């Protein structure tokens, strides 16, 4: 349905001391199950090619990534049009066991926060010690007044996931806190080798 489907704020972008971009449609499948159970590990491996991530980590695969959400929950990130098939593969593989699979792609909005100072922007709205997060980490928290998950998706980039209904609020919020001139210089950049 990609021609009919649209994300929450298509094309929204703001250039501050970091760049905020609405990331478009992103496939997401939630799985709640016993993450230590062999059939669950196998089902995820088969559906995504990924191992179960460690606490607060994201495992990257070729077509999908798996993010740790809680002791009994992972989130699978994939192409938007692949979510249904991954979900049904998981549901089939785990049929009869205590596991719940749901496509949640459209319940979410995704923003990328790009730039070396992404921690400084997010520190204004998230009660998180960003010095403890490195690439491949994910953290569930709040951004000002709404829930958010933050995935350190690159060396100088974070990906923020929130509920779709508050995409407008989130975009305005991220734009506000990353306005030029308001750099707090809290997180120092890694020292360049000169």
């Amino acid at each position, binding site marked *: *349905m990609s021609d*009919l*489907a*649209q*994300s*929450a704020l298509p094309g929204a972008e703001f250039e501050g001391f970091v760049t905020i971009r609405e990331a478009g*449609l992103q496939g997401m499948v*939630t799985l*709640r199950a016993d993450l230590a159970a062999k059939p669950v590990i196998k089902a995820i491996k088969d559906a995504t090619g990924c191992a179960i991530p460690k606490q607060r980590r994201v495992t990257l695969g070729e077509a999908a990534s798996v993010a740790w959400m809680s002791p009994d929950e992972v989130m699978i990130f994939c192409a*938007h049009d692949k979510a249904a098939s991954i979900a049904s593969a998981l549901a089939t593989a785990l049929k009869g066991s*205590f596991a*719940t699979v*749901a*496509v*949640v*792609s*459209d*319940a*979410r909005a995704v923003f990328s926060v790009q730039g070396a100072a992404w921690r400084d922007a997010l*520190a*204004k*709205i*998230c*009660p*998180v*010690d960003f*010095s403890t997060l490195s690439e491949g980490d994910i953290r569930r928290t709040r951004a*000002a*007044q*709404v829930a958010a998950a933050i995935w350190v998706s690159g060396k100088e980039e974070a990906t923020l996931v929130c*509920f*779709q*209904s*508050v*995409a*407008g*609020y989130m975009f*305005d*919020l991220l734009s*506000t*806190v990353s*306005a*030029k*001139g*308001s750099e*707090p210089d*809290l997180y*120092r950049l890694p*020292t360049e080798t000169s």
Partner: protein
Amino acid sequence: MSHRLATGGRLIDRAQEQKFTFNGKTMRGFKGDTLAASLLANGQVLLGRSFKYHRPRGVVASGAEEPNALVGLGRGDSYEPNQRTTTTELFDGLVAESQNHWPNLNFDLLALNNLVPQFLTAGFYYKTFIQPRAFWKHVYEPIIRRSAGLGKAPATTAKDPDRYEQIYAFCDVLVIGGGIAGLQAALSAAQAGAKVMLWEQTAYWGGRAPVDMVEIDGEPADVWIRRTVETLENMPNVQTRLRCMGAGVHDHGYVLGYERVADHIPTSDAPRHRLWRMRAGQIVTATGAIERPLSFAGNDVPGVMLASAMRDYVVNFAVAPGKEVVVVTNNDDAYRTAITLRKAGVGVAAVVDARQDPQGALPMHARELGIRILTGKGIRKVKGGKRVTGVEICRIDSKGTAYTDKLDCDAVAMSGGWSPVVHLWSHCGGKLIWDEDGSFFRPDPDRPPLGANGSGFVQTCGSAAGQMGAVLADAHASAIKAAEALGTTVAAAAAPATDTMPDAAPMEPVWMMPRNAEYDLRMKMWLDFQNDVKVADVQLAAREGYQSVEHTKRYTTLGMATDQGKLSNINGLAILSDALGQPIPATGTTTFRPPYTPISLAAIAGEARGTVFQPLRRTPLHDWHTENGADWEPVGQWRRPYTYRQAGESRHDAVNREVKNTRQNIGLLDASTLGKILVSGPDAGRFLDMLYTNMMSTLKPGKCRYGLMCNENGFLMDDGVVARIDEQSFLVHTTSGGADHIHAWMEDWLQCEWWDWKVHTVNLTEQFAQIAVVGPKARTLLERLGGMDVSREALPFMEWRDGKLGAFDVRVFRISFSGELSFEIAVPASQGRAFWDKLMEEGKDLGIMPYGTEALHILRAEKGFIMIGDETDGTVIPQDLGLNWAISKKKEDFLGKRGMEREAMIDPMRWKLVGLETLDGSVLPHGALAVRAGKNTNGQAITEGRVTSTYYSATLGRGIAMGLVERGPERMGEEISFAGEGDKRITARIIDPVLYDKEGEKQNV
């Protein structure tokens, strides 16, 4: 006359002149000045009027403790009252105005209060103005309010143009205070391996040390300060912030910091203030000490200043407070001021020392400089009104009836000793002890504020800890203690440098000058400058029976002004203790509460203003609604269209049109806000049987059932349709407002009570756009889209099917909240807008129109369907609403079952749901009470019911209503009376609540 000295000024840059105005008069200062310094440099000593008596007031201090020199800053949208000139950095174009006078600063008519002080003593408002009773509200209070108060509030229309923000930060050791003790503590903690944050409230490092002639390792303190700051700034584990005040210390090492990022650069694009929300493992307070005034008659006359402040102005800003100064003291420290003034070429008329024989190094030095010293003396009174003109001297132990000397001078420097700044130590429960030698309260290191592990999380060092001499060794030790408390492997921190100061002889407490002063002098001895509280007021309070320091504070208002008694606290306690005949520690202190000095409300609000004041939740169809005339109403954080108004249409007409069209053609409703919670797992059926009053486990896949949820007390909490998806999973629909609450309610039971039940919940509310297609032509429209069979046989009432409608992935529920043929269609949210557009387009010739929440309410009310929040209010059980059919009798238990069985719940007299029909066809007022003849024992009207829903029904052409009425269902056809506006009564007949298609044929076609 105060003036700028020709040379000197360690903080100013004479090459950068800055212009500003005070009461419209243009003045000049230098970059680096505080506003107070540049006002003094311009000879402006009179800066404002006092709170009650409108006495002329000038600068007393040089920092955050200043009680007098407050001004209104800025103009228009940027105007702010009560700004401290002593902590305001000068910038080019600054606009300041003095406060609390009428008609102007120099000539204030309200100073007449000063002539009748006996009417305005402590607690005056409780007693002087008590009779006649009615006069307080209408005469006295308005007059007092006009006369009292500081700055004026900004205009109600003013809109602050500045930006504000907050920031969350984390560190091992937070050092508050950037004097030499704070710098050393930060350095030692950092060298020990801790991650350190250092805050200093002013714009420069080093605190008082350079002014107080401190030497470090044999060099002036400035050298060491510069070197240490540079070292700290180059350490990767250290962050330093100037202009950042530690505002409050809270539990678990949570500290609020108030950073004035751009107050001094108002044209920059930086946020004005930033509120730091810091989590620190350990906190070191190096907040220094504040000098105390002396209590002598006229100690508030402009030109009387703290001795330390006076030398701050000389050394830091090259500003002399006058041409001829008298220094009055009970300790050695004030001699620094005399020495500093003399060296700067300012006249020192004398040092008046209350002690009989001061022999410390500083007095000796002063003598060597030829400064006249009067010992065993005090100031009897200060002469002058708007400015000091001289002082009268008397013996310290006298009553002050006569003077021994008279000295001409235009400024007085006073020093009553020092008090450590213990505020941050005390905020979270740190205890104090009385220090006999220094006559001050200082932190008791054995009783610090305790953290979660039962041990202290605040250390204190330097003069904040009561170390009034050398501080670096103490600061080093505190930092190491903090690092160790965190379990940091303490790396070798270098031994601290050695700081030296001249030896000081002990001070001698002087709480009143002279010691046996008579009443007329005591009436002019100010304790709290800002709130106009005098020695005589505190003594009066004690005589009137006030013993607790907290009560005395509130009765006299001592320490309750915007400076929170930073100068008055100890002096007031001492006077009270003396009056009560007990030692000071027996009196104790009042409570120290955050913030340390006032912080802006805007910093507390942070970024939350304008579009990000509050999250606004939008459905995938929000933009369409906006583009098509939506008249919004808030539903939780959502906005939903109340109705869609067409050009020239009233709201009422729009609603009626939508109701009729839905009954006759097709209406579309955006129902996306409905809660959708997936409940799944082997125990899902059992779980839902506990949550709902009726049986859900018996529902077959593919079918829907309406259910009620109650809280433990049996009160109806939520309702909605449950669809069984498969053997293990159900989709629970909740009310729009209830989605998050019901999800949390489910998790609460699953995590805390039934933790071993195998049930998962996933909140899918926003995954779907849900669109209700309602009306007799609804099926025709869906059949046009094609893709799935939506016939009565293939998709019967109260069932659902997955499939395709046109190109869209849909789940179609045959449920109806309107009584019409109705399909609620869920599509993935990303397809929502395209699907809605498609329906509108295909349905054009069928008369399709969207309808809003008001039409939704009317349609359901015509059918007698209840609405959570209208028919329920937290005190209503399902039986009250005639919903007994939805309460299972077979189930052993469900949430609320026992609650419903309580005596009051089965009382036959309970108000129960009925329909109501006015005899004249009018619409009953919302919430109207049904009243019966007679009065209850309290003389109130007796009520027997209330309206819960009331509308104009376009379908029936008259008002319709539902209400809860005492024994209502047994009284069908009876007429009862409802209270309208005033004494108006409206008669209504009790009828069946179902007014439209009682057999349900229309929804079941």
